[in-house]
C-alpha cells in the first residue's frame, strides 16, 4: 500500500451531502475483475450526459479544479454499497483524500486499505474550506497525517481525529493481512477450540 504522510494539493469542492457509492461509481462499471482503470468512470452520471458527452458544468470539469487531488464534500460521504471500487475510482482519478464532516463506516474502512485518506473535520471547518475552494483560484491545502492537521496558506489550521493504528498503517503503507498473520499462533489456537464443521 502506498504510504500517506504529508500531501499538498489542489482542492475540488463537491457541495453535496450523502454522496453515495452508487454515485461515485455506478453499477455498470463494477463488472471489471481488475482493481485498476476505474478513474475514468468516477461520478460518471454527473460527469457525463446520457449521450456520453462531458458535462462541462460539473465541478470536476471546471478548468480551475483540474488536477485536484483533494475532494471536499458534505456529510455522510460514501454511504450505501460496500463497493471498494468507489475508493479505487477516486484514487485512480487522482485523489489522495476526501474531507467531510462524516463518512460512512465501510467507505472509510475501505479507504484505509488503499492509502487513501478520509479526513473528518467539523461542519464549520468543512464549510470554510468549501468556501475558499469556491472563491480562491488554485486553492491548495496541506493534509499532514504526521501532525493530524489540515492547513492552508491563508491561516486555516485544523486537527482531525484518526485511529492511531490506522494512522500508523497509512504512514508506513503497511499490509494489514501481514500484520494479522503475525498472530498465527493465536489464530491457530482459536481454531483448535472452534473447529469448522463439514455439513451439508
Amino acid at each position: 500500500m502506498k504510504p500517506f504522510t504529508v500531501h499538498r494539493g489542489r482542492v475540488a469542492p463537491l457541495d453535496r451531502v450523502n454522496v453515495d457509492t452508487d454515485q461515485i461509481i455506478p453499477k455498470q462499471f463494477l463488472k471489471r475483475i481488475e482493481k485498476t482503470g476505474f478513474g475514468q468512470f468516477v461520478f460518471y452520471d454527473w460527469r457525463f450526459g446520457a449521450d456520453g458527452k462531458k458535462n462541462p458544468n460539473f465541478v470536476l470539469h471546471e478548468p480551475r479544479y483540474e488536477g485536484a487531488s483533494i475532494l471536499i464534500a458534505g456529510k455522510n460521504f460514501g454511504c450505501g454499497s460496500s463497493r471498494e471500487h468507489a475508493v479505487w475510482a477516486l484514487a485512480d482519478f487522482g485523489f489522495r483524500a476526501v474531507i467531510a464532516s462524516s463518512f460512512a463506516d465501510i467507505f472509510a474502512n475501505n479507504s484505509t486499505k488503499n492509502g487513501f485518506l478520509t479526513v473528518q473535520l467539523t461542519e464549520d471547518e468543512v464549510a470554510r474550506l468549501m468556501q475558499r475552494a469556491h472563491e480562491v483560484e488554485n486553492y491548495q491545502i496541506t493534509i499532514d497525517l504526521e501532525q493530524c492537521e489540515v492547513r492552508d496558506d491563508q491561516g486555516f489550521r485544523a486537527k482531525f481525529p484518526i485511529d492511531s493504528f490506522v494512522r500508523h498503517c497509512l504512514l508506513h503503507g503497511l499490509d494489514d493481512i501481514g500484520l494479522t498473520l503475525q498472530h498465527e499462533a493465536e489464530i491457530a489456537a482459536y481454531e483448535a477450540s472452534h473447529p469448522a464443521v463439514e455439513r451439508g
Partner: protein
Amino acid sequence: MQRLKARWLAEFPACLKACPDTNLTMPAKRTLFEKIWDAHLVAQPAERSPILYIDLHLVHEVTSPQAFDGLRAAGRKVRQPLRTVATVDHNIPTEPRGTPITDLIAAKQIAALQSNCKEFGVRLFDMDSPEQGIVHVIGPELGLTQPGMTIVCGDSHTSTHGAFGALAFGIGTSEVEHVLATQCLAQQKPKTMKIDVRGRLADGVTAKDLALGIIGQIGTDGATGHVVEYAGPAVRALSMEGRMTLCNMSIEAGARAGMVAPDETTIAYVKGRRFAPRDAEWGKAIAHWRSLPSDTGAAFDKVVEIDATQLCPFVTWGTNPGMVAPVTGRVPELRGLQDAERRAADLALQYMGLEPGRRIEDIGIDRVFIGSCTNSRIEDLRAAARVAKGHHVSANVRAMVVPGSQAVKRAAEQEGLHRIFQDAGFEWRESGCSMCLGMNPDILQPGERCASTSNRNFEGRQGRGGRTHLVSPGMAAAAAIAGHFTDIRNWKYQ
C-alpha cells in the same frame, strides 16, 4: 433532514422519540453484541485494532475477483474453505436459466468466480444450482446463518443476517481478501445502539415500514459507527423474515450492523436446515443461543424509542431512504429548510420529477419491482400475491416479481403464487439481485418511476434517470394494480 423529519413527525407526535440511555451499568452486564464480540476475539495487540475471528464468509461474483487475485499474487490460500460459501447473484440475468448471458463482461466475472472457487476449494452455489439465490437469502435458508456467529460478505446488506442474533456486517474487497487469507479481521470496536420498538405494528404495516420509519427518524447517518440491536414487543412479534427485512435496512441508517436477539422464533426457523447443527450438537447450540440475549440492564451507547402503533405504510419520495412520507401524506414542503438540507431535498425532487406538496397517492408509476435481499422471501411473495389475486396490473405499468432464491421460487410455485402473479399480469422471473441495483439487464429507462421493494432509492441505482420509491411488497403490488401509490390498509382483497 432534521426539518423534514420534524414535518412528518408532526403528523405523528407520539411516533418516535430519542432518549438518552439512563441505565447504570455493571461491568458484568453485556449486550448481545458484546457477548459475540468477546467470544470472537483472537488477539488484542497493544496499540492495534483487535483481531476478530469470522465464522462464516459469504462470497459473490462482484466484490471477490480482485481479492482472489490478491491471494494469488501473495501466494496465499483460502484459510478455511469450510467457512467460505459462494454464489452468483448480483449480475446474473433473471431470464430462464440456460439463456446465454449476452453481457460479456458480466459473463467473464461469473467465470472468474467459478474458476476461483475451483482453484481455492470454495463451495459455490452456481447459476444452475437448486440452492442458488441472493447471498443474504440463501445463507439463512440453508441454515448457514446461525445465532452467535460472526458473518461477513463483500456486500453492505450483510446486516440482514443479524436477524438471527449474529454479528454480520459488510466489508470491501480488501477485507474480503483479508478474511479469505486469515479468517480474521482487524476491527475497531463499534459503539452500540438500542432501538426499542414499543407496541405492535398495525395490520398493513410491515417490517419494511418499520425500517423506513426508523431511517426517516434517525437519518441515513443516524447509526453510523454503531451496531444496532432492535428490541421491544414489535420486534419480538416479527417473523424471521420480517426481522431479516428490518436488519437488512440497518446499513441505510449507516449502522455497522443490525441485530435481533435469538429467541424461540429463531430456533424454530434454524432447526432442521441443511447446515444447521444436528443431534447432540443441536442441544449444545440452542443452549448457547439462549444465553446470547443482552443482559437486563446492559448499557448501550445510545437508545432510541419507537412507538410501533403510530407507524403506517411509508413511501420514499427522494433519493435516499431517509426521505420518507406516510402513504397518506404529501411530498414535504421545503420552506424553512437550511442550506445543505434544502439543496439536497431540492436536488432530490428535481431528480424525482416531483414538487413539494404533491399527495403521495397521486404519484403514478411505470414499473414495479418485487424482489431484492430486503423483500424477496416467501412471506413477501405471499403478501404481494394476496394483494394481486383477482386483480390485474394497470395497463401503464410493467411489473416483475423476482424471487430471492431458487428455493423461494420453488416454494412459491408449490403454493401457486406464480399463477396468481402471472394471471394478474406480473412477470415471474428467475432468482437474483436483479433490478435492486440493475447490474443485469433488469433496469429502469430514464424517467421511469418505480415502486420497488428494494433498499436504495439513490440516483441512478435502478438505471440512469430511473426514479425509485421504496415500499413494502403489499404496497408495491397494490401500486402495480392501481397505477399509483395507494394505502394498502384500504385494499379490497379478493
